[in-house]
């Protein structure tokens, strides 16, 4: 990994990789400054889009610039910024041979302070009558329009005009809000005039500093210490969030937009696991944590109305999942909101390719949200065109997170945008697609999975029993056991109890696999129980666990191993498990099918991407 503490190790050529993989999301001031300096000095960097920005300003913004350049680079831009002087924003705009016009600009930001555009609204407001205030507002709006018109006459650059935060301490105190035309109403009227102006002028957009300030808070985002000693109004805490806010505008301005939000179900759209917790047990509703997921769904619905196409990509049993979306009383998003529902047990890279093909959009139009980091890693690795975002750890933050995705922002909205989700839903056509998931093995290898076989102990017995109680989907026999029953089996010499922990490079998935083996005599062994939590499904863990156990049986001089598959309403994913691993069906009854494997013929191949560790029983 590149050591970002040492400027000598910054990448010369691999900037894009470094920015994507190593650059921290929230840089320290030193890293932001150092990186930005290099980015601004390096000639055109391959993979980054050059961007020339001019900023007309009236106070110190220099410390903000490195953060902006840094975050712009993480978003794929090599931005160069030119800042006006504190007081010459009008003259540089009007002078054809000024520095502002010394080169082509892609974007011009007008980031003036209220005191520069309308001093009367910032200071000394208390002594003014209504007519005077109206005159100031009208004059300020007209000055701004003159400035912006000049900018547009001189160039094709988009213009982003910043409005003004309300003052937290109006001159008349609380009376300000009670009176008919107070200081904050005056600022509000000026902001409204600016909004009307930007709506009227093509290529001119409003940067809502007032909203940004409301979200983060004036006390946090300003620093009177710095303002009074150094002329910088912003606090250190404001630098990174403000840079990111500018990027939320920059992306739609530069045409960076994604069309489709692909959502996982369990742990993303609702809490819990449908296959284990059931229709009644998943978390969605009006109490915590269900209300967090509901807020997330409401945010999704807002995106739908904004023209974002919604799709589902989930490993689940389709009939159950569809039924839940359709009938669950607390669900906000219903099947008709989704243009595409991909619910099955295939890997998610294949899912996403199907979704893109079905909607006839590119993979580079998809944004993928999944609470499971290993699914995200799979998509990042196999489908780098898809924008895979890291959902926050806590569902409390899901809603604000999805509402902040800049790739879904638009600065103008058409009727078609408003109806797009519905149109896609109606037009969905399935197309055949060649499945090209070639490098799944690479993905598995990159997960660095380790299976740790644990001895049953006072610590593991409760979890083992719980897994037999709760696991529905990947459970071959669905035999439910209490802790006492598990203890009994452990002490029974004819039985073997295995518990498996799955670790990968993202961490410990916990005890997620259980197998109970029973010696039937005559060198025949039977799987009484074989189950995996669906947390680790779809990663060939079941194969490795099975082969590991078959090896143990061989060690115990077993010649044959058999197991029942007993179908239930929920264990469809395990249906072909024995068949896939070379077992032969011996007998079918009303209970299910008994499968058998002759160990003298050798074992199926152990997947090469697992490390297996044994923890010996101390008993």
């Amino acid at each position, binding site marked *: 990994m590149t050591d970002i*503490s040492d*400027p000598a190790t910054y990448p010369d050529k691999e900037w894009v990789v470094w920015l994507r993989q190593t650059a921290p999301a929230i840089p*320290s*001031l*030193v890293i932001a*400054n*150092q990186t930005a*300096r290099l980015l601004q000095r390096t000639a055109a960097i391959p993979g980054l889009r050059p961007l020339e920005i001019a900023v007309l300003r009236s106070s*110190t913004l*220099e*410390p903000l610039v490195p953060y902006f350049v840094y975050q712009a680079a993480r978003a794929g831009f090599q931005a160069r910024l030119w800042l006006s002087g504190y007081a010459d924003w009008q003259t540089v705009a009007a002078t054809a041979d000024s520095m502002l016009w010394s080169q082509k600009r892609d974007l011009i930001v007008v980031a003036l302070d209220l005191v520069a555009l309308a001093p009367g609204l910032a200071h000394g407001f208390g002594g003014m009558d209504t007519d005077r205030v109206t005159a100031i507002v009208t004059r300020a709006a007209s000055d701004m329009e003159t400035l912006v018109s000049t900018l547009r006459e001189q160039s094709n650059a988009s213009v982003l005009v910043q409005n003004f935060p309300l003052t937290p301490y109006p001159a008349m105190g609380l009376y300000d809000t009670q009176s008919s035309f107070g200081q904050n109403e005056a600022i509000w009227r000026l902001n409204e005039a600016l909004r009307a102006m930007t709506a009227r002028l093509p290529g001119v957009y409003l940067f809502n500093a007032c909203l940004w300030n409301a979200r983060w808070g004036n006390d946090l985002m300003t620093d009177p*210490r*710095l303002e*009074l*000693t*150094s002329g*910088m109004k912003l606090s*250190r805490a404001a630098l990174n969030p403000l840079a990111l806010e500018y990027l939320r505008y920059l992306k739609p301005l530069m045409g960076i937009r994604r069309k489709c939000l692909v959502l996982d179900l369990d742990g993303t759209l609702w809490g819990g696991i449908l296959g284990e917790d059931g229709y009644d047990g998943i978390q969605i509703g009006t109490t915590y944590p269900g209300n967090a997921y509901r807020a997330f769904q409401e945010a999704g619905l807002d995106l739908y109305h904004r023209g974002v196409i919604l799709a589902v990509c989930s490993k689940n049993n389709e009939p159950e999942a569809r039924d839940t979306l359709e009938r669950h009383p607390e669900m906000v998003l219903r099947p008709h909101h989704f243009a595409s529902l991909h619910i099955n047990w295939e890997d998610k890279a294949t899912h996403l390719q199907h979704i893109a093909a079905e909607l006839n959009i590119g993979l580079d139009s998809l944004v993928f949200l999944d609470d499971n980091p290993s699914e995200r890693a799979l998509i990042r690795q196999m489908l780098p065109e898809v924008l895979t975002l890291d959902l926050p750890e806590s569902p409390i933050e899901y809603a604000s997170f999805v509402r902040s995705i800049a790739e879904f922002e638009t600065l103008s909205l058409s009727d078609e945008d408003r109806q797009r989700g519905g149109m896609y839903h109606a037009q969905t056509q399935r197309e055949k697609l060649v499945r090209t998931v070639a490098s799944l093995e690479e993905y598995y290898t990159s997960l660095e999975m380790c299976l740790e076989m644990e001895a049953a102990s006072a610590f593991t017995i409760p979890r083992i029993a719980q897994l037999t109680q709760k696991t529905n989907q990947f459970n071959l026999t669905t035999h439910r056991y209490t802790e006492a029953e598990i203890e009994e089996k452990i002490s029974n010499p004819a039985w073997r109890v295995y518990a498996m922990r799955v670790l990968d490079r993202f961490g410990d998935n916990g005890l997620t696999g259980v197998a109970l083996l029973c010696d039937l005599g005559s060198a025949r062994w039977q799987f009484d129980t074989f189950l995996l939590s669906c947390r680790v499904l779809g990663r060939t863990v079941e194969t490795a666990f099975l082969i590991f156990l078959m090896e143990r049986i061989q060690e115990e001089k077993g010649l044959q191993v058999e197991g029942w598959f007993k179908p239930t309403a929920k264990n469809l994913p395990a249906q072909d498990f024995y068949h896939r691993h070379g077992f032969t069906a011996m007998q079918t009854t009303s209970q299910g099918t008994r499968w058998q494997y002759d160990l003298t013929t050798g074992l199926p191949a152990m997947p090469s991407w697992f490390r297996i560790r044994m923890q010996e029983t101390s008993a």
Partner: protein
Amino acid sequence: MDIVTRLKPLFARLLEIDEQSIRPDSSPANVSTWDSLQHINLILALEEEFGVMVDPEDIQRLDTFAGLCAYFEQRMS
């Protein structure tokens, strides 16, 4: 880690100078990159590094390497 060892790389990286060239009396007068804007960055970076807020009176007054070291030494003790 003593304060001088902690401050030197930070100074070197922000002001784009060699750590070896930093002397106790390094100041805006003898380090050309140490202008008023970099001074704000230095103060902010030090505040970030040490998790303290510099008093307004001290923001402008602290303009030598030794002075800043002594200030943070005292604030951290």
